């Protein structure tokens, strides 16, 4: 393998960002192919455990994106999500987990170009940060640990 290509997982809401990403495609805008998009009914549904599981399963970066405030299909899902991400981010910072690897954004269904930008900037940033070695090490030791109780 020559250059490091980061794996990025994007958790997006069905109503805004997913439609926005669709628009990126139909508008023929090119963006980094490192991203794997997972569609959710609403950002309010995106549990923080999903983010942790992404890292545990090999993601180097994560994008979480949904409707702009006041545009939520369910009125307040993104407001709830916002509070949750504030708490989550502060907790992660406190525990020394790299929040530069996670992008939180609001991308509407009309912002196809913006979605491309969000993805590209995230991929560039994570590429610079390199593979998430410390997290991966933790996963690997967890698997091998105690086999011979080394």
């Amino acid at each position, binding site marked *: 393998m020559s250059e490091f290509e980061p794996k990025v997982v994007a958790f997006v809401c069905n109503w805004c960002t997913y439609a926005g990403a669709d628009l990126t495609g139909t508008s023929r805008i090119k963006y980094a192919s490192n991203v794997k998009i997972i569609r959710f009914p609403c950002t309010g549904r995106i549990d*923080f*455990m999903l983010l*942790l*599981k992404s890292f*545990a399963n090999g993601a180097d970066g994560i994008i979480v994106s949904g409707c702009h*405030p*006041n545009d939520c299909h369910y009125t*307040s899902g993104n*407001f*709830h999500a*916002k*509070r*949750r*991400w*504030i*708490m*989550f*981010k*502060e*907790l*992660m*910072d*406190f*525990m*020394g*987990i*790299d*929040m530069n690897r996670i*992008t*939180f*954004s*609001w991308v509407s269904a009309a912002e196809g170009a913006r979605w491309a930008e*969000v993805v590209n900037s995230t991929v560039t940033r994570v590429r610079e940060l390199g593979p998430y070695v*410390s997290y991966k090490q*933790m*996963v690997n*030791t*967890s*698997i091998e*640990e*105690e086999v011979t109780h080394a």
Partner: protein
Amino acid sequence: MHNLILKAKELLENKIVSVIIGFETGSSGKVRPVFITDSNKADSLIFDERCIQNLAVYLTKKEVKQFGKMGIVATLPIMRSIMVLISEQQLSPENVVVLGISGDGEVLDFADITVMQHYIEKCELGNPAKEQDMLATLNRLNMQEKFEFWQKEFSKCIKCYACRQSCPMCYCTRCAVECNQPQWIPVQSNNLGNMEWHILRAMHLAGRCISCGECGRACPVGIPCHLLTMHLVDQAQSYFGVYAGISDKMSSVLSTYAPNDKESFII
């Protein structure tokens, strides 16, 4: 102490409560929770600076609830836990009588929950001074140092869940950690799973923790896991301006929102 015993006896004799949850002398200089149903036994009740366990954890316990109406010896963290339990519909205010204890050990007479609320409002609600210092020390570390600090601590975790069991707010009969479809958190104790468990616990207590520190005290291997939830107590206060457990009608920070919540990291 004398007043406390008199008050407990009065409540039991007049059949206002069926059980008093308080402290008694334990083994080797420890104190421990006691459940008194007979007013003649109320003399064993004590209260001193060792009595710091959060007794509110028993208010949702099946075998204790069976007694009927409960009286509870309550310091400030216990009063605040009671508020959280009431606001989350885990405890009915009619089912509890609070034998309040002030910061300097005086017995407080709370006619009802509203009176207790007025008392709580007048108290200092932040994290205890000792923990504030530890939080400040940790917050000064860089990312790598913080990561290493917590990894070292979590490596001690044996997944006995004493942190969860000793917490009054962890009243769920089925914890997310026990969910196995999907298996969010490995059953075994390993570095990754231990960290995930502590993140999960802290997040589920975000905006609900009342800074009693019981989780850290209960931990048999000495992980300062109370600092995680206490850090979020500080954050909830600075972002949203509220402390948990100050009213019986409030919603916790994460179950509500304000359209003008401020953050600086969502692009």
